[in-house]
């Protein structure tokens, strides 16, 4: 009886809710969509109207922007960034999984103390560590052009967050599997490689996604370590474009901004399910 009476109002309320959500979503995404649209229209028309449907389409901004960067231009910035991302990925995946395996399965002296230290490392602001790290790398002459200061820390399992993520994951894998492997005569490294690593796939996927996005968006560490335009990443290249904005113009600046977001956006599109799960289980900031 009551359900019959309330049914229409519930439906009305539901569509009201959808309308509200769509409106709010549009408001949130409007700046991004506006930038996307503005990047495809002639520069003089950017402020002509505020709608999102472009009239006359042009690729002029993209062509101009792509060739306008300092030094090697955006082709080079993209290549540099891909190299750093690839190095960081390999470094993080290998080193963090090894460290996690040691924490979760092996016994060694002061293990609890090390584990506590690693947890504290998650809270540690990067800016605090950056100073001694910088001094170390600059004394070895690696600051300026090489990507090593950006990649070496990853090979040393510095991203405690991922180690923690993997330790948590490994705790859910039954120990009997390792024991079976060791009965079959496999040593710790072999057990790790043949048994543990394949089982850790979900945690490795999460690590891949976040390493990619964070390294791609990273600005602070390239800013301090890469001082020559030839070694710039896309973030640095884009920032240098801001300084020369008066000469290069708003259109190309928007076009290049859009282009630097594309890889992250593609990752988001294809790995959405993993990202949502990753954040829900680890609470990472994304």
């Amino acid at each position, binding site marked *: 009886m009551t359900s019959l009476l309330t049914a229409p109002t519930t439906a009305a309320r539901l569509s009201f809710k959808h309308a509200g959500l769509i409106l709010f979503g549009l408001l949130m995404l409007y700046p991004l969509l506006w930038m996307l649209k503005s990047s495809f229209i002639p520069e003089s028309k950017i402020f002509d109207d505020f709608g999102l449907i472009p009239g006359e389409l042009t690729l002029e901004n993209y062509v101009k922007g792509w060739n306008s960067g300092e030094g090697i231009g955006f082709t080079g910035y993209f290549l540099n960034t891909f190299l750093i991302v690839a190095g960081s990925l390999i470094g993080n995946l290998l*080193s963090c999984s090894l460290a996690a395996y040691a924490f979760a399965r092996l016994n060694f002296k002061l293990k609890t103390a090390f584990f506590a230290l690693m947890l504290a490392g998650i809270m540690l602001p990067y800016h605090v560590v950056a100073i001694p790290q910088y001094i170390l790398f600059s004394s070895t002459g690696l600051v300026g052009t090489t990507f090593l200061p950006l990649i070496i820390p990853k090979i040393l399992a510095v991203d405690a967050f991922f180690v923690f993520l993997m330790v948590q994951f490994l705790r859910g894998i039954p120990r009997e599997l390792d024991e079976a492997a060791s009965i079959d005569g496999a040593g710790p490294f072999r057990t790790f490689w043949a048994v543990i690593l394949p089982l850790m796939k979900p945690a490795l996927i999460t690590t891949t996604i976040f390493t990619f996005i964070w390294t791609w968006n990273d600005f602070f560490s390239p800013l301090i370590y890469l001082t020559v335009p030839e070694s710039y990443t896309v973030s640095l290249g884009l920032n240098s474009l801001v300084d020369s904005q008066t000469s290069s113009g708003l259109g190309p600046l928007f076009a290049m901004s859009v282009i630097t977001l594309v890889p992250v956006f593609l990752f988001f599109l294809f790995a959405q399910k993993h990202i*949502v799960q990753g954040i829900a289980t680890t609470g990472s900031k994304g």
Partner: protein
Amino acid sequence: MLGLVFITLGPLLASLYLSFTDYDLLSSPNWIGFENYRRMFTEDPRFLKSLAVTFTYVFVSVPLQLALALALALVLNKGIQGLALYRSAFYLPSLIGGSVAVAILWRQIFGGEGLVNELLATFGLEGMPGWISNPQTALGTLIILNVWTFGSPMIIFLAGLRQIPAELYEQGSIDGVGMFGRLRFITLPMLSPIIFFNLVLQVIGSFQAFTPAFVVSGGTGGPVDSTLFYTLYLYERGFINFEMGYASALGAVLLVIIGVLTALNFYASKRWVHYND
């Protein structure tokens, strides 16, 4: 492999040592005791300014961001159609919020001839000053940017809401509890560990924000230091002026602040967080 963990402790101790020295990378560090810290608190108005700016940024943007995240999580929680689509749309800004591209977009939205002012001009409000070039409003635009990235706490809230047993709500409706009663007596207490978790995470994260302030202010923290984030000031001292000793002392203070805030959060949580064991 285990020695690698030292990579965290080593720099930390090195940084602590350097904070008591005067070091410019060229000559060797020179021990000066607490001089850096004394200068910081008594002779450095920009240090105090950067603290004020960062605290304002964190204490205004984080509560707003979390309130928005919770509100949308509550709306999206009730088995709404198209959940995945809404969730993605609301989450996207979190993913790119820290990028240079979005900071550039912000410059154009709130600039003197930016989107907001052009929109206002169509309503007859012509010639408004730029929001990012006005010391009164510049920090506000960065706060809006941080609130805009409410998507990741929202997803954590959604996951938390799903853990609340449905029986509690059934029991509540039998007892005749209304919508606000359910929110006040069931949802919020059950969700309090998650709210706490998000709070700690966002406070720590926001304290370390760097890119938006750097790009929007062109690296200066201006106008008139109104967006001089703590990290920006540390960067300037350490990596522009190469005052490594002073920057290390700034880093040590940052560490203490984050540590104290986190401890305070944990302490306060005993009063309002309910663990369901």
